[in-house]
């Protein structure tokens, strides 16, 4: 029996379900009309691939092998996947992985659970049983029912293999492996169709809608209910779509979707290549890096999903989670021997919010020293959607890299001298004050009050707003009008797999206002986006000009909306 499993990583999202239940079932989409964007062809990311396998075949199925790295575009892997293909070596890896998975699906530990019928003879083919299994499994893997041709081909191939190998399950094994290397599985192929309600315009077809919706809210393949709704045409009606969106937003699985979005937005794929000098930061290692990511994701899902909190509080919340390992980095006691426990930074603590957590400050630092510049750039690009130019090629970094320079004890002093170079000053004035606010945290996330015995000053000013210390800085970012604007833009891009178009600026502006009116509730924002027509509208041929990417100039009016 093919089934969807509740992922283990979902935790504690039930608490907010009641609040969401009151929010929007059947709410009318009164947002501005857009002309839509192009359909996308998106390669599955490694997390998506793994989650699909866990949902379709169960969490006991191991996913062996390695995956090709993903590409980040416009701040998101979700956008970069629209530009990815599969190289020859990548296909070999997919094939090895598929064979490894398929072998487990039909092994003695799984076949009784995963295959819904028993062949008449184990040593021979059984087309009826094979059809039942392949139709069920293929529907979940391809995110739509198999066509008659696809189904007949799969059953025929499975039968021939079973006959040759003398084993029914060996035939199915090859069938599963074949489906897992099919472009229909590896790529989320969106298909558009004429919109009968708006003559001359196009929309995603029902199964493409289901897929976009499921990956956006749950980070996985559509479940049977959603595919059934697509089959019945329910997703093409306002009420039918709203019903499915509400069901999914109320589900504990929304936490998976929120985690997946922030994993992408925060660039956690960067941890795969992150290293620290062990002699300088002996407490930092791969286990700490793994826990640091999980800490931030737990902080976010607890605040945004479990407690349905204000998005802006991610910058100021004093509530987080720790393991014993992280406790050694944060220098606080942790009573739980294994696993996680809640922790609240006490009053007066220099840490607050996810910017001061190990994940952010360590990911945006050099291996052997912190970097206010990199941190400032990261904050502006990730949380404020502001593009900071790369440095010119002929910059001399010697001064900022010399952490033992007797004349410049702190990063602030070194950068102060560095920006005397005219070609550097402009950008550094944008980045450095932001990053210097986080200088109390070294490259590995540990606290320090001095550098080279000189006190670290974290006071500063960003975009006209002054702050006295690191916590004051988090409050400034909390109140920065661009922060919610950036989130709305970015989460929409995440769902559609493309940057927003200029044509969609007004729609986004409207969503920003609604986001503010909701109290900056992320689940409600996701519900509104997922329930909107704009989310599924496809631009018609000849309107390519509408597809011009929305620049930050286009978001300035949205900033006004929340001021």
């Amino acid at each position, binding site marked *: 029996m093919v089934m969807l499993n509740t992922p283990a990583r979902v935790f504690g999202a039930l608490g907010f379900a009641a609040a969401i239940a009151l929010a929007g079932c059947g709410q009318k989409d009164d947002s501005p009309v857009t002309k839509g964007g192009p359909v996308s062809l998106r390669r599955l990311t490694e997390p998506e691939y793994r989650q699909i396998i866990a949902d379709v075949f169960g969490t006991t199925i191991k996913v062996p092998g390695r995956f090709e790295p993903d590409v980040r575009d416009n701040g998101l892997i979700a956008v970069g996947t629209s530009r990815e293909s599969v190289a020859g070596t990548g296909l070999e890896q997919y094939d090895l992985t598929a064979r490894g998975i398929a072998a487990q699906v039909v092994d003695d530990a799984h076949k009784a659970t995963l295959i819904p019928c028993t062949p008449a003879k184990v040593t021979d083919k059984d087309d009826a049983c094979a059809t039942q299994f392949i139709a069920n499994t293929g529907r979940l893997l391809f995110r739509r029912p198999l066509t008659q041709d696809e189904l007949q081909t799969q059953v025929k191939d499975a039968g021939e293999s079973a006959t040759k190998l003398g084993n029914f399950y060996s035939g199915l094994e090859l069938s599963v492996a074949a489906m897992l290397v099919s472009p229909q599985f590896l790529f989320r192929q969106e298909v558009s169709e004429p919109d009968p309600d708006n003559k001359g315009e196009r929309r995603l077809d029902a199964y493409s809608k289901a897929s976009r919706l499921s990956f956006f809210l749950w980070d996985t393949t559509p479940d049977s209910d959603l595919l059934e709704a697509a089959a019945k045409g329910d997703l093409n009606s306002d009420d039918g779509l709203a019903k499915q969106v509400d069901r999914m937003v109320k589900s504990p699985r929304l936490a998976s979707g929120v985690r997946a979005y922030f994993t992408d937005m925060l660039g956690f794929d960067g941890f795969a290549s992150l290293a*620290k000098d*062990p002699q300088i930061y*002996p*407490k930092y290692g791969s286990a700490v890096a793994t826990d640091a990511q999980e800490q931030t994701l737990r902080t976010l899902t607890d605040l945004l999903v479990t407690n349905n909190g204000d998005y802006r509080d991610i910058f100021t919340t004093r509530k987080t989670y720790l393991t*014993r390992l992280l*406790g050694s980095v944060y*220098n*606080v006691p942790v009573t739980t021997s294994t696993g996680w426990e809640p922790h609240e930074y*006490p009053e*007066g603590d220099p840490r607050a919010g996810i910017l001061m957590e190990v994940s952010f400050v360590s990911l945006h630092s050099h291996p052997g020293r912190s970097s206010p510049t990199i941190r400032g750039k990261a904050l502006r690009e990730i949380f404020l959607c502001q593009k900071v130019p790369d440095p010119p090629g002929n910059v001399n970094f010697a001064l900022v890299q010399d952490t033992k320079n007797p004349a410049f004890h702190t990063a602030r002093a070194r950068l102060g001298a560095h920006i005397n170079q005219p070609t550097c000053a402009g950008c550094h004035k944008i980045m450095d004050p932001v990053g210097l606010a986080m200088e109390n945290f070294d490259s590995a996330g540990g606290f320090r009050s001095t550098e080279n015995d000189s006190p670290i000053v974290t006071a500063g000013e960003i975009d006209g707003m002054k702050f006295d210390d690191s916590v004051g800085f988090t409050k400034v970012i909390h109140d920065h009008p661009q922060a919610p604007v950036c989130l709305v833009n970015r989460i929409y891009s995440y769902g559609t797999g493309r940057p927003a178009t200029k044509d969609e600026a007004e729609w986004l502006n409207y969503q920003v206002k609604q986001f503010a009116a909701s109290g900056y509730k992320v689940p409600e924002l996701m519900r509104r986006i997922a329930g909107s027509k704009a989310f599924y509208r496809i631009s018609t041929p000849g309107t390519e000009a509408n597809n011009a990417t929305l620049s930050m100039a286009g978001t300035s009016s949205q900033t006004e909306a929340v001021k």
Partner: protein
Amino acid sequence: MTGFHSFTRPLSLAAGLALAATAGHASASETRGYVVSWFGVSTYYGGDSDCPDGLNPMSTEFYKRELLRLGYSEADATKLLKDFPGNPGKPDGEYIKIMATRGDKKTNVYAHPESAADPGLKEVKGTKAYGFNLDGKTDSPISFTDPDTGEKGIKNQYYRTLGCIRSFRAPPPAHPTLAQAQWDVLRDEMPAWLIEVSGITDPKNSDNVTVTISRAVDHVSRDATGAVRSDMSFKVDPDPRTHNVLHGSIKDGVLTTDASTIRIVADPFLIPEFNWKQARLKLKMGDDGSLKGILGGYHDWYALYWSYAESGWVEEHSASVDMPALYYSLKRNADADPDATGQNQSISTAYEVEAVPAFVIHTEDKNDKKVSDAGSAVQPRRVEANMGGWLRKLGW
């Protein structure tokens, strides 16, 4: 301790995580927590001066000596020893069975070392060693002088016995091979050892401090350099067998404790448990928050012998510790607690101790107690079981 980052060093926490120290008051005292990051028998490396008779032979050498003594020809002895680890051949070579009964050709020489004659162990004849003046005498012929402080009357007969065995020798800062190997295994497999120092009014000078040595229910973790990770949290094993409360003082940044018994539950890989009499600590409190120094006291010498001999030929051949020779030397050098026959039952010892800052958490939670009962209690085990563990750990 007034705020989060006034935690200059991890502080001990009382039950329910209420802070043990009464912070913020001028008269408040501080409690500091530590986890032991290094423990090993203390040996002084004096080059040629401490072993003027030379070093004890390697196991290949004393095995061959024993084979010749038993009547084997040079050729036969060489042939038998071709199976010695590192040489081509079988890991369970015939020589092992012969060595295990080398006394009277039928009795297990490790369990009954007196079945063999004393082959003689070359002992330390130098004058310097670390430890304590356990008996208060400075003119005893067995006295050493502390190489760092010049203190006379140091008693460390355990070092006198072991100090000329190659696996117990290493020029600083290296640790002797056997001690290092034992600790490398223990620190990963054994619940951590904890030290708490409470009543600190001044980290450099405090007249009355209480030092608690206990065992955790948690294990140590390593950092990126392989060292014991500092600032980790450890829950104290509520088993009273693992608790030692000592009185001490801090003078010029050096913590010393009064003589007391100290019992530390360890692991059969090293020794099931240590039981020292008249034991004391001398630990320098480093500016980096660490502790480094010596634990010394009298210890039952046979228990120390058995901590090596329980593994039989495994440790004998891998660490080149001639077990009957060790037995007779320990018995000969024992310097306290004479029995009715006059044979001393205890031997003066000293161990190196290092510790790094840690959060020490006391809890009476029933669930935690279960954790302790299930995972930490050291149960009496049969010798064979211990040997099995040894063999597995060494890959045999």
